[in-house]
């Protein structure tokens, strides 16, 4: 089971990586007014053919060859629906995929956000050749983390260096605190 949003993000983004995406964006939008939390993961990977798209939330559907079940999207769907939300996936072959999950922000079954900052940074560090954009919006403001901007500052130094990873995680955490993200 996924204990928090950070785990879902780590999981679903792996799909984008397997699809060969060079750019992956993760957007979280919290709205107190309509008591909703939206998680949108967009990539420019190879896309999902229409016939497969109908079945992606079926646990017995997976593109991998090492096992016969794929639980990433079904678990996300189950989590979203248990909070009164839903999961929708749109995709175009050759263009990319958008997975959009909505949740009841204050619903008791909504899992905590978890270590989103650490997850985004680990993904960026493990995939230095891909661009990751993470945007988080709350009623108090918005914060955007973009690995293109990080690499501009690093001027050729690897984003995978431990002190860089540590710094980026702290930087994102502090900025998320500023916009008072939910637990």
């Amino acid at each position, binding site marked *: 089971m996924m204990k928090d949003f950070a785990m879902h993000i780590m999981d679903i983004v792996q799909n984008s990586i397997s699809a060969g995406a060079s750019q992956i964006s993760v957007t979280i939008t919290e709205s107190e007014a309509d008591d909703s939390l939206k998680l949108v993961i967009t990539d420019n990977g190879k896309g999902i053919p229409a016939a497969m798209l109908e079945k992606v939330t079926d646990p017995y559907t997976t593109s*991998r060859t*090492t096992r016969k079940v794929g639980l990433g999207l079904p678990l996300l769907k189950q989590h979203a629906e248990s909070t009164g939300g839903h999961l929708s996936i749109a995709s175009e072959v050759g263009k990319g995929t958008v997975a959009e999950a909505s949740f009841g922000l204050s619903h008791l079954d909504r899992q905590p956000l978890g270590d989103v900052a650490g997850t985004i940074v*680990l993904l960026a560090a493990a995939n230095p050749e891909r661009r990751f954009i993470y945007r988080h919006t709350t009623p108090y403001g918005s914060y955007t983390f973009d690995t293109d901007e990080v690499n501009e*500052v*690093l001027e050729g130094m690897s984003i995978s*260096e*431990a002190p*860089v990873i*540590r710094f980026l995680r702290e*930087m994102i955490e502090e900025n998320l605190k500023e916009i008072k993200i939910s637990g």
Partner: protein
Amino acid sequence: MGQVKSLADLRKIKENQQGKMSLREKSNNPESLVQVRVAMATCGIASGAKQVMDFFIEEFDKRNIQAVVTQTGCMGYCFAEPTVEVTLPGKEPVVFGYVDAKKADDIIEKYVKNGELVEGIIPVNYETIEKK
């Protein structure tokens, strides 16, 4: 309360790190580094693969071991997650199962440093997804 960190502060980290790197002359050739790949599919993530990856990155840095830590997909050993594949320079990859912080510490101290095998090796001729 201090100022919120921004990318401008990253420059300091960069300069600091460049000083250290020239000291230990980091090789640009990944073949000469220890490579660790943490299986990061649904099964791995649900069993704590992220904590294991965090641990390897932090500890390699602290113990001054030159290593590359990345992610891989499910290797088919969902029952033994978290699993990690460790490749020492010039050696065949070895897959360890049931890795937590303690096992990861053993892997670094025994296998990475001394080449001693530790418990929990998955002794199968496996193929990674990329190879299929």
